[in-house]
């Protein structure tokens, strides 16, 4: 079941496009914004509202890197593992995060505080290495400041 709030936002997007289906990515984004991830139940509800098959919607949902089809933690750490960050030593940042949080890429801490994911280039390569937590971008990272950064996310 979609909430009234979700439906209102999705209908706003539907009104902007000539065919209903074209709003399906926006709909996935809206529901994920509210619920953190897209469960099977959410997927079925969105598909019914958009009037497309759940299979087709799932093929779209699973295509894009940032639609989560599995539960994630409250805070999502996206660590850039692309080339400029490789040259500037993202692997050390990763080692440190692994040790601190006791999770690898793709995992969530048992208290659901953090999910750690590798991510392709964050577009701040002149300030590599970089990572993003939720909406916040951190640049020119050093291991020393990582613990302080993590502390601010509850």
């Amino acid at each position, binding site marked *: 079941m979609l909430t009234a709030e979700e439906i209102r936002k999705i209908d706003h997007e539907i009104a902007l496009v000539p065919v209903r289906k074209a709003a399906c990515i926006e709909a996935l984004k809206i529901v994920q914004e509210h619920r953190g991830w897209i469960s099977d139940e959410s997927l079925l509800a969105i598909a019914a509202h958009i009037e497309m098959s759940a299979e087709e919607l799932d093929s779209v949902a699973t*295509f894009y890197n940032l639609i989560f089809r599995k539960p994630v933690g409250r805070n999502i750490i996206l660590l850039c593992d692309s*080339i400029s960050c490789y*040259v500037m030593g993202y692997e050390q940042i990763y080692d440190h995060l692994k040790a601190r949080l006791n999770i690898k890429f793709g995992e969530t801490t048992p208290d659901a505080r953090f999910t750690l994911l590798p991510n392709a280039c964050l*577009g*701040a*390569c002149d300030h590599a290495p970089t990572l993003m937590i939720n909406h916040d971008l951190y640049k020119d990272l050093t291991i020393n400041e990582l613990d302080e950064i993590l502390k601010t996310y509850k």
Partner: protein
Amino acid sequence: MEMPLTQHISFNRPPLNLNDYAHVGGYQGVHRAIKAMTPQEVMTVVQESDLKGRGGAGFNTGTKWSFVPMNDAKQTKYLIANADEMEPGAFKDRLLLEGNPHQLIEGMIVSAYAIQANTAYIFLRWAYKKAARLLRQAIDEAYAAGYLGNNILSSGFNLEMHLHTGVGRYICGEETALLNALEGKRATPRTKPPFPQVSGLFGKPTIVNNVETLSNIPHIINKGADWFKDLSPGADAGTKLYGISGKVNKPGIWELPMHTTIRQLIEEHAGGMKDGFKFRGVLPGGASTDFLIEEHLDVKMDYKSVAAAGSRLGTGTMIILDDHTCPVGFVHNLEHFFAQESCGWCTPCREGLPWTEKILLSIENGQGRMEDLELLEMHTKYMGPGSTFCALAPGAMEPLQSSLKYFKADFEKHINEKKCPWR
């Protein structure tokens, strides 16, 4: 030296709002184009300026526009700003999006007028959160000032503008894949022809231009084609945003005339290599371009010169390989990216890229065999131009094929010593 694109960009303050932008001459391009020029005249000036697509392909922008069928005035048409910039090592459009969003919007209004499109989209990379916020504000201001919406400057021309933020897939930067993404589909590329100019978004004529390309348009309208050509003493017109990342003293981004050499960029602008690090090679135009090496340092960063040296200008954002970084690990990192971002539509790319990634990893881990080098060579042919559905796989092969040419000894050393000499 004139720097039209970045003249009003400063890192010490937020971007200019509409009033301040108008105060320094902003939106004059819209006034001039819509009030004093026909769409055809706008198209002609842009074509004559020889502004080439700044997203990497390097095609004449005005010529691209001229393929839009203009005979049916009632026909729905679309203009799209490709702000998906997702190639590793590329960060130039971010500067324009965060630094002067009104310049892009102005360029889009003029461009939409030229092709008589009444709807425009900005397809923005999801990671550019700050740009999204600034663009939303700027679009609202432009509506409030009457530069967007109905009957712009009482001309009868209407334009709606929407911001779409992606959900992360490199292939969305490919213009036909981008159209599918905007239509709410998997972002697999489409067959060409029909070209998007004729049948694009929702089957309607559509122009997709890069952010840097569009940001140049107001200046060309205001100052003319010859002025634009004169910005560069070299063969290619205009200025270019160049970026450098890697072990240099001052990584960053600069607007410079098209003829600037690689050496000038590294030494004068990026402050040279960091102490203790030596230059070994550079991907001059982003992750999907061929390596150039020391002998190419005096190559000019324009379309023709970089091509003559065996690579591509691409996005103009260079990634530097230094002597403390393993070339095999470097290329493995790139192929990992391309394998992961392959849309999976065609077999050579879907199967071939993970294969090259695995071979490179085994060489990097000291388990490689000499035959693997031939296998890699083979893949560069099987995924070369013409063998795959779109340019992602051939692009992925460019750094691989050139690393086998310039850094073969490093590959062999891994195989002979059964380990990575850098680890």
